[in-house]
């Protein structure tokens, strides 16, 4: 294994909660190269023969196992697009942790675009955690434009936790999902932007067969002069149920455009959307101040709770 430096180890901790080498299957990518990999009897990881990226194959019936595929970039000016494909067998129950941390102390922009495709077999259950984090005080931007595609077979479940709290200058995140009979997708997105950052998050969820369901909830905070666009679209093409929710707090000169949308193409589709944007309510601050917090501490508690 190529040794990770201190900056890379810190990025690894921020994005994957890893203090060292993870248990189970993993692939660690640092500055454009795969630096360490482990496979198990049930989970295989192979580099793509053409192009950049890996194929992860999970055998039928794999339960209580995990795959970690963190990416860290600490070299200024590095730009890469990586294709990672997950082939999940039937009746699996697996945790997948991805995520990217960029530390850019230089003047050139650093960019990582991870294209993740999930093919989830019948009755499998996947919990997917993706964290994005940026640090470094160089003038070069930290850019992440991930694409996530999810293809879900009958009776499968996917829980996605997408988190970007700090330090990414520009992100355009696209998530597409197609669900078959009785498949269930749950998305919890948490986003905070500050400074001059810009974040665009687009979801398109297609509920194609009877009994499929989706619950897509985005909670976000835009501080300073940052900008966010949240575009959450659910299409009901069968007897299905879908819910989208954008719930946002704006602070300072932050701006947010929330575009929750629904398209029902079947008489038995039941779709709901909700959206709310506003500053922190004055009475919330006052309540916490009557408990002894300063106004700034109260604000932090409210934001932390909201994004928890």
């Amino acid at each position, binding site marked *: 294994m190529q040794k990770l430096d201190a900056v890379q180890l810190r990025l690894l901790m921020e994005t994957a909660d890893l203090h060292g080498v993870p248990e189970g299957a993993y692939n660690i990518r640092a500055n454009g190269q795969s630096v360490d990999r482990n496979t198990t009897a049930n989970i295989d990881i192979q580099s793509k023969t053409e192009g950049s990226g890996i194929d992860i194959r999970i055998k039928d019936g794999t339960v209580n196992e995990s795959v970690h595929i963190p990416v860290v970039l600490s070299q200024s000016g590095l730009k890469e697009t990586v294709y990672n494909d997950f082939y999940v067998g039937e009746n699996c129950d697996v945790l997948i942790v991805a995520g990217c941390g960029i530390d850019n102390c230089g003047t050139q922009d650093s960019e990582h675009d991870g294209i993740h495709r999930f093919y989830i077999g019948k009755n499998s259950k996947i919990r997917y955690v993706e964290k994005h984090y940026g640090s470094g005080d160089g003038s070069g931007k930290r850019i992440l434009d991930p694409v996530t595609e999810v293809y879900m077979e009958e009776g499968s479940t996917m829980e996605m936790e997408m988190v970007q709290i700090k330090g990414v200058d520009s992100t355009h995140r696209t998530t597409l999902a197609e669900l078959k009979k009785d498949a269930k997708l749950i998305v919890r997105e948490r986003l905070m932007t500050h400074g001059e950052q810009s974040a665009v998050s687009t979801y398109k969820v297609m509920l194609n067969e009877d009994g499929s369901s989706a619950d897509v909830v985005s909670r976000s905070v835009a501080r300073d002069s940052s900008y966010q666009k949240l575009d959450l679209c659910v299409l009901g093409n069968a007897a299905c149920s879908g819910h989208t929710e954008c719930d946002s707090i704006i602070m300072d000169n932050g701006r947010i455009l929330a575009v929750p949308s629904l398209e029902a193409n079947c008489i038995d589709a039941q779709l709901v959307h909700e959206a709310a944007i506003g500053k922190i309510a004055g009475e919330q601050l006052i309540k916490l101040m009557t*408990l*002894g917090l300063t106004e700034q501490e109260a604000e932090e*508690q*409210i934001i932390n709770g909201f994004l928890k």
Partner: protein
Amino acid sequence: MLELKNITFGADNNGSNKEIIKDISLSIPDDRFIVITGPNGGGKSTLAKLIAGIEKPSSGRLLLDGEDITDKSITERANMGIGFAFQQPVRFKGLTVLDLLRIAAGKTLTVSSACQYLSEVGLCAKDYISREVNASLSGGELKRIEIATILARNVKLAVFDEPEAGIDLWSFRNLIRIFENMRSADKQRTVIVISHQERILNIADEIIVLADGKVTKQGTKDEILPGITGAGFAESVCPKIEEGGE
């Protein structure tokens, strides 16, 4: 001891200044259970907010244990031992009951001590400790959690602004029990409750009647209560419920 000296408070009312509190002077000694009552619009909630620092008086001084707190912020007064329970408890998306109790306690509160405060207000801790303090909680549940945050702070002066407002009769009976417990507990704590309810007036050491921004009556429960029963603002709970007992 809390002292109010010549407190006046005015608010802007369509361009003209409307006086809501008119030159009130009061002394509230330690370890008392005081109920402030009076007709709606008489200035009761404003007075409570002036004590907590949420509103600042136009003139006059407030003293806590001899120290002038008139210019102290909400946070400073909270840290000096003043607690305030809102008439309409505030909801928070994401903050749990445990988070709120921990903030109130100002320290890392163990789950078992948090449970103690919840059981004091009649809530089963395991059902509530991880719940978000959001719209999924009923008015009565929020009121009790609000009171639990005051208990967790262990304040020397607790102000409750119409604790009975917006709750159902069943929750009200439990609320009375909580105040009765607070009343009997030897906590060296002064409690000021803004209320219309006879059941709460009935457990007061002292009753203050506030009308049109002024103190119109002040004295012990036995002196004041007979004169205000049936005055329109001292309300009894539903007689049918009263007959049915607890």
